[in-house]
């Protein structure tokens, strides 16, 4: 005779109905949130899981500070991010309730809160893109399903792809687009950058991770 006890003691049934302080934050809460997310999805609503109080985020957000528009199409996310912190030449932009984008200048070097985040990156200087460098060295880092940081080194090449009209806030802006093509044995992807005639970067589309796709930032 063999008894399978603990597997089921905390199983699905327990999860749905368990209550009391000893059962908080466990399987039940997680399953409850999953169920709510599913209901919200059925109703066509966005569901945001309850987040811990961003106790310090309020302090960090500069009042009336800079904002950066970002969109992650694969997540259906398009919003303003607010400058939350500056660390040397890197800036962290956040939006409640728990998403962060990290840039080095205009180049994306990290994300947090999206799931399969870009955990770290060595990105080129934007001048290498405009200089149409053919030997741009990039490194991107992800967290895999086994808690390990996996690193990929890529060689990228930039080229001008021609003039494009961008509609920014209802204003049509004439830009020139540059494409950065990157390849490694594991990945092939392209980033794209739009510069206006003054040479100012007006928009970029940069890879976050294979599952999240690209970030479109202005």
């Amino acid at each position, binding site marked *: *005779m*063999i008894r*399978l*006890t603990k597997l*089921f003691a*905390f199983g699905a*049934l*327990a999860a749905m109905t*368990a*209550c*009391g*302080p*000893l*059962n908080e934050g*466990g*399987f039940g*809460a*997680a399953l409850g*949130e999953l169920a709510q997310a599913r209901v919200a999805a059925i109703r066509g609503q966005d569901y945001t899981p309850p987040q*811990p109080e961003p*106790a*310090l985020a309020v302090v*960090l957000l500069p009042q009336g500070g800079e904002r950066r*528009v970002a969109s992650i*199409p*694969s997540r259906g996310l398009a919003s*303003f991010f607010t400058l939350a912190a*500056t*660390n040397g030449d*890197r800036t962290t932009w*956040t939006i409640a*309730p*728990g998403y*962060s984008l*990290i840039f080095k*200048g205009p180049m994306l070097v*990290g994300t*947090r809160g999206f*799931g*399969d985040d870009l955990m*770290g990156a060595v990105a080129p200087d*934007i001048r290498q893109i405009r200089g149409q460098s053919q030997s741009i060295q990039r*490194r991107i880092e*992800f967290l*895999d*399903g*086994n*808690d*390990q940081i996996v690193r990929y080194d890529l060689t990228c090449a930039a080229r001008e792809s021609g003039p494009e009209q961008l509609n*920014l*806030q209802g204003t049509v802006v004439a830009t020139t687009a540059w494409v950065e093509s990157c390849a490694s044995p594991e*990945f092939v992807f*392209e980033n794209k950058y739009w510069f206006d005639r003054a*040479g*100012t*970067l007006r928009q970029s589309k940069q*890879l976050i991770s294979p599952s999240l796709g*690209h970030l479109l*930032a*202005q």
Partner: protein
Amino acid sequence: MTPRLKRFRALIAGTAATAALATAVPAQEWTPTINMFGAPGLIDMPTAEGAAEAQITTGGSYFGNQARLTYTFQVLARVSGSFRYSRVGEYFADGDPIFDRSFDFHFRFLDETDYLPAMAVGLRDFMGTGLYSSEYLVASKNVTDDLRVTAGLGFGRMGSRSGFANPFGLDRPVNEFGNGGIPSWDQYFRGDAAVFGGIEWRARDDLSLKLEYSSDAYVREDATGGMEINSPFNFGVAYRPRENVEIGGYYMYGSEIGVTGSLIVNPLNPSLTSGSEPAPVPVSVRTADMRAAQSWDRAILSDDTLRTATTQVLRSEGAEVLGMVISDRAVRIQYENNRYRAEAESIGRIARVLTNTLPPSVELITLEPIREGIPVSAITLRRSDLEALENTAGADRAIYDRAQFSDAAGDSGLARLPADEDRFKWGISPYFEITVFDADAPIDPEIGVELSARYDIRPNLYIAGSARKSVIGGAGELGYIAPSTLPAVRRNGAYYNLLGDPGLDTLYVASYGRPAENVYSRITAGYLERMYGGISAEVLWKPVDSPLALGAEVNYVRQRNYDLGFGFRDYSTTTGHISAYYDMPWGFHSQVDVGRYLAGDWGATFSLDREFENGWRVGGYFTLTDVSAEEFGEGSFDKGIRFSMPLDWVFGEPTRRTLSTDLNSLGRDGGARVDVENRLYESIRDGHIADFSDSWGRFWR
């Protein structure tokens, strides 16, 4: 000058183009389909291939009079093991079925190349009654991208159709399995051999057509009339509608319809690859002037205010501060991580919060995770390192190299902070347990309600208890209890299910301590588990940076009354073990316990688990004592398999909960131990370097 971003507008862009650009290029791999034995294979025959490393396949199959439920674990890339529970109808002369457990082993010793096939050797049902006892040598090769050919040589049952004389000249003796559960060394690769083989055509990525020639003649089943064997050929289709589900339908042996269904889980591939926790608080970087400060004005910010504020703000990261000492240049915090499975993630997030709250002069941050009320290690980080490394590539390794790990430094100077939460905690939850492999009731489910409660007298001294009431199912009758000459230490467990409803499962006082550097202690007294009450004392030596731990435990216990009240029966005993734990390379963990067991028998338990960095564990153990196989009864000695799955792996949300189970024999008296909750090693190990480093990738998460 760096170009600036000047215009802001919400954008919705098409996803197709962006997603297509980020394309991982997979290697061309053949994903094997699952056979009737719940392992990669043809239909009833094996192939040389293995599943993806770490894959766990739970497969059910049915044809003729054969029903099999198999659990296969790909232990390493080349090695897999299976555990199977089978029902064979009309097995005995009187028409009764047999229920049987079996174990398989499969080793691929040659990988496929352009010219050579993959080759493997395997043992089916290699210990015990040997119902499916057979061995094989098999080769598989893709002849085109979509067509795979397999041929093999089988022995035992797999040598029973058109067999020829053993190529090594070895006879196969009668399997003297006795009480079962012992490897049948004298059987392997002996007796007649026969050839088997087949082809698999991958019609679509999710659909395979299979044809095989089986070398198992099902001699006994054919003779007893349980199955009609008209042909050695089997054919059918395997369909994998989703990555983790496979079903199959086959026409087998010229008379039978066979069906399979398999659920596939791979610990290395969570559905949400790396979790979905919210972004951390960014590091607050000090200016050079601020870094140069040697102290701060306590008239503006007192130590007490700082402690209170830190306690409150760290709750946002699921950390309960239990003690804190702060000086001008350093802070030391003892905390209990209640949210993140990986302690490294908790440390990383707490440290980032502290860069925002601590006075600028504080440079050293020492964090001491608490388990069972006692500190288990000390991790010291330099605030300037956090500032320098945040958001840089390779920051995980860099901060690991600069962090200092040591034993927790004791209570000297530590201001104890009263926990804000109530000391009394309780919970009510339903439970669902299932008893299997009982000859009278092979699957016996039970649903009930469990009430649990805990009162913390001090963080390291608490009273805990739990009680249960069965609602549906459970032991309505006693069932069969095998006779034994040993004291009834476990075989009378069924009485507790029958008479102890409702019952008090546990009620005990537990105290944990740190008597010396690298040393941990525990004393637990009361109703320790459903069958035993008494006192249990344990001491553990475990340096924070050592993969090796040594422990000793002594228990004086008395068997509880069957009604699960407060009374005791006559049987009492002293048990105890010396234990060695070793966190091995290559993802394995081993444990050896030597000592005296509940029935007064002396022996040792050997455990080996494959442990994944993300918290999954799959393993097994066996116990050998001076109880003979005859005294022990069915199975000959105690053994079991077990797995543990972290729930953050399932849902992506941070939680420290795990889902775990043991599959072992409860009804035997040899090699039985007292089941004490929260033993030391498992309580503290994830606060030590070996486990830290496993999941250090989550530090900057």
